[in-house]
């Protein structure tokens, strides 16, 4: 469904159908995992499996509800999103995760900073990357020295004894 497509047009909303399917899969996973638990008979009645089954039951019902809602096209209209900027930001987060243990907080977070700025259309990277690294380094210094937060150190951080 793209922007402004009227609800009267009774075409099932594909994305909403997908959400219904995901909810059903989550319910199935919870039921499957919970059924694998070995519960001592003494706890069988009000043990650790009761609540997960209730949640899974609820999710299954909600999946049906979402299915009906998708069929009637009653999800609110939404605009077509641009995925390009999103990919820059997700890329920045992944880059930070992979770099942290070797390059340290400042460099890894500088990469996140620069790629996020890029996602919002600010570049070029050779300008924003140094800005990001410098900014992250100041943040690292304030929080790890000032507030004793343990943040991963790398070559840059080791320059400060």
């Amino acid at each position, binding site marked *: 469904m793209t922007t402004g497509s009227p609800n009267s047009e009774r075409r099932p909303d594909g994305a909403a159908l997908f959400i219904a399917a995901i909810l059903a899969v989550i319910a199935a996973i919870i039921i499957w*995992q919970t059924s694998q638990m070995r519960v001592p008979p003494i706890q069988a009645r009000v043990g650790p499996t009761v609540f997960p089954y209730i949640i899974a039951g609820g999710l299954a019902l909600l999946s049906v509800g979402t299915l009906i809602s998708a069929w009637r096209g009653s999800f609110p209209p939404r605009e077509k999103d641009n995925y390009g900027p999103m990919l820059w930001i997700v890329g920045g987060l992944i880059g930070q995760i*992979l770099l942290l243990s070797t390059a340290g907080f400042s460099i890894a977070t500088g990469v*996140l900073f620069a790629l*996020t700025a890029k996602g919002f259309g600010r570049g070029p990277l050779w300008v924003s990357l140094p800005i990001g690294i410098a900014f992250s380094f100041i943040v690292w210094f304030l*929080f790890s020295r000032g507030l004793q937060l343990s*943040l991963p150190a790398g070559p840059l951080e080791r320059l400060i004894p």
Partner: protein
Amino acid sequence: MDTFALLAQGLMAAMAPMNLVYALIGVTLGTAVGVLPGIGPALTVALLLPVTYRLDPAGSLIMFAGIYYGGMYGGSTTSILLNTPGESASIVTALEGNKMARKGRGGPALATAAIGSFVAGLLATLGLAFIAPWVVKFALSFGPADYFALMVLAFITVSAAFGDSALRGITALFIGLGLGIIGIDLQTGQARLAFGVPDLFDGIEVTTLAVALFAIGETLKIASSPSQLKEEILAVKGSVWMTVEDWKRSWVPWLRGTAIGFPIGAMPAGGADVASFLSYSAERSFAKKPEEFGHGAIEGVAGPEAANNASAAGTLVPLLTLGLPTTATAAIMLAGFQQFGLQPGPLLFANNAPLVWSLIASLLIANFMLLVLNLPLIGLWVKLLTIPKPWLYAGILTFATLGTLGANGAMSMQVFGIRFSFELVLLLAFGILGYALRRFSYPIAPVVVGLILGPMAEQQLRRALAISQGDPGILIGSPVAIVLYSVAILALVLPMIMRMRGKGGALAQLASDED
């Protein structure tokens, strides 16, 4: 000891020089972060939680109180000077406040918001101090079944009563409840839904989820949205001071807003946004010059801002006395308590009275500090509004990942020889979830509340069933529980009927997406 003596004792403790410093840091940071566009009180509190990690419980909670109130203040500045409010509770403020700013009356708009917030914060915090002991006395007689009923009621009001769809609200709630199952079951020591990942044994951190949904989800949504709003920051022209007429037109709305906001916050009936919306419609119908509404009526800023703050203080009633968070912000505050092994509720009042009362007293102090800080520093806050979007969101993500690393930075996973932090992977995954929820108009707050309240509800449910030896009849075995379930059913069914009869528009405007 009576309330006065306890409050006086709390004030003495909160006035200790070090605690005043903590409160001052709290309100300054809270306002500075709360002013940033796109950051509401829930995210402000979640982002700043790591700052309080290394303090003692009392100092940390005092700073936290400052952050909470500061975040609420900051949001109103954003919505008056910028037409895109940072928190949903301030959307209503933007209606009239932004119009006033456009007419060059931004100064008085900010002043009436600040003084109104102060008046409301003062009265509502005093209300909290006097009502809390009564609620505690009542709550001490609650059995597990009553607590379970209370939590069911909170689940319904948070997820289904407001917003444009009960289906999407309850779905969001159940996503949170499902995430809450993950981890070791405290009563039997068995792992549930952990898939053998050791990092999941302790369950999902509320702060990780909240920061991911609010900060990363919001950043992704804004970045990908094709209709980038053109934002225009309005300069504060002329005098900041209110004229005599402004005062005359403001003081009744302040009091009326407080009277509307405090009960709504205190009664688990929804967040601050509900209160400010109701206050706005009340002011419009009481106004002597209704034609000014929509063109910058000062009553439309004074009332909702007071209601907004009164309800923020009201939310602390169920949180402190019952351990019941009814907004995303309260859920994160509960997590803040839990990091010190403190469980808010009637027992905290009984066993740790000095701590609770110094927290309440520091709310009063934070409120005074904000009044003194806010207006003179307005120029500085306006500067913060002018940070360009790319740098702003890059900075938000820096602090979002910093907080997560500070809470749990263990590089516990390894793939192809690269060690990485599992917590950051969760942050990314929940961030994408947050984007998807926003994209399909699911509310965010029920997910956060479900995560923290789900395990508590389960504990009460199992306790009740253990007492009755498995007979579910105990759940409706007390008058308190029956009343609570009846209210819950009403809160679920009435809005559904309203939506069916085409009156859903008003409810949709009350949608809680921020706190």
